[in-house]
């Protein structure tokens, strides 16, 4: 069995850190792209126009029933076909993540807006505000306070999800750890290290978001 030997971590530290950097890059792209697309999808899910509502609903529900790994594979095959040539794994992973996570953001946004009581809407309409004014000045500002905790939680989940890009060989944090493992076979130290780093990052992010939530409190 041998003793713990963390030398393997120290020796390969910069390689592992470059993997972590890729993880952060992918996460940031997934979160920002997913949020933008998610807002559009969420609004579409609230629309009263059937030709907007039904396609959006089918799209969101379809993607949410699939495992992320499969979606990553699917875009990995699809993107080069559409582009006519291979475009690199970071790009197809980014697209897969943006599309996939957008559906989760969309549901958070839709639920947040629907949680505002109908009476607020009626009160705004009764003073002759139109739909856009009602949403912009009355509903969305209130919904934001409800949505932000869930949006932050989802961002932490996205950060963890980046590890799945492993399957297409993207050199993010997990993959770099696994490469070091296949070279040096100090699996215990390596995976323990990976676990601890992920834990510290995610635990910190979720603790910060809980603290923010407590500070801001709730309106009602």
């Amino acid at each position: 069995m041998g003793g713990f030997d963390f030398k393997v971590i120290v020796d390969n530290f910069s390689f592992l850190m470059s993997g972590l950097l890729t993880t952060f890059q992918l996460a940031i792209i997934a979160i920002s792209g997913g949020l933008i697309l998610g807002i559009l999808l969420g609004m579409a899910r609230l629309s009263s126009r059937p030709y907007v509502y039904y396609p959006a609903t089918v799209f969101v529900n379809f993607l949410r029933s699939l495992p992320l790994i499969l979606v990553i594979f699917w875009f990995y095959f699809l993107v080069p076909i559409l582009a006519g040539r291979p475009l690199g794994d970071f790009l197809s992973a980014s697209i897969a993540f943006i599309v996939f996570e957008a559906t989760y953001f969309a549901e958070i946004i839709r639920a947040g807006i629907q949680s505002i009581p109908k009476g607020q809407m009626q009160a705004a309409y009764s003073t002759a505000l139109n739909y856009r004014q009602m949403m912009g000045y009355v509903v969305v500002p209130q919904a934001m306070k409800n949505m932000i905790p869930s949006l932050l939680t989802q961002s932490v989940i996205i950060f963890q999800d980046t590890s799945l890009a492993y399957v297409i060989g993207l050199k993010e944090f997990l993959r770099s750890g696994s490469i070091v493992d296949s070279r040096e076979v100090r699996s215990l130290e390596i995976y323990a290290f990976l676990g601890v780093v992920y834990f510290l990052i995610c635990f910190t992010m979720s603790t910060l978001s809980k603290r923010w939530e407590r500070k801001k409190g709730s309106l009602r």
Partner: protein
Amino acid sequence: MLAYEFRWSVLWELPYAVWMLEGIWTTIRLGLISWVFALLLGIIVGTCRVTPYRPLRLIATAYTEFFRDIPLLVQLFFWYFAAPRILPTSVELYLYREVPQAEFWITVIALSIYTSSRVAEQIRSGMQSISQDQFNAALSTGLTHFQMYRYVTIPLAIRIMIPPLTTEFLTIFKNTSLAMTVGVLETTFMSQQIEAYTFRGLEATTGACIVYLIITMMVVSGMGLLEKKLAVPGLIARGR
């Protein structure tokens, strides 16, 4: 335009169709077995999260936080690659060589533990949503604590928790796909196996998508029926 020949028949040609069916069966087994363990563990940990007994509560909280803040894939790799190293070499070799489908059972362990931490959270929030007054009302009619839990708290909590637990059940099926990375022959693995043999990645992956879609629809309608049978009027708010 698109320099790609589609060949959808890979989905029903032999032997590929048989591979897919085997994969689907493995996915179902993996999902159900892991779910049973996850529920058991999750209920225990979740209940510990709400006991007034502080040490138990702290352990349960640490458990939940820990397993929720590390990606499932990392946990799986830990159980598959790293944990056996702690065992004496002879046990390790036995595990890898003699135990049939070691990777299947290791995945069950990883998936159960991960999911149990999420189930524990649902249990905790379900139990906390039952008001203190309910407890008071039950106790004031002379029921013992145990009777109160058995006849009032737990039945009520189960009905409240069915929607979020349904989501967890679906999630565990989706998470079985991670097992492909350690060589478990489940649906996603098989779809990529087909791709390796036929180079028809898009078709194979689409086929796997349809499988998961069908599984999801079946679980959702099954759970919907269960909810209707157990529904308490006014308790679970429904509506658009």
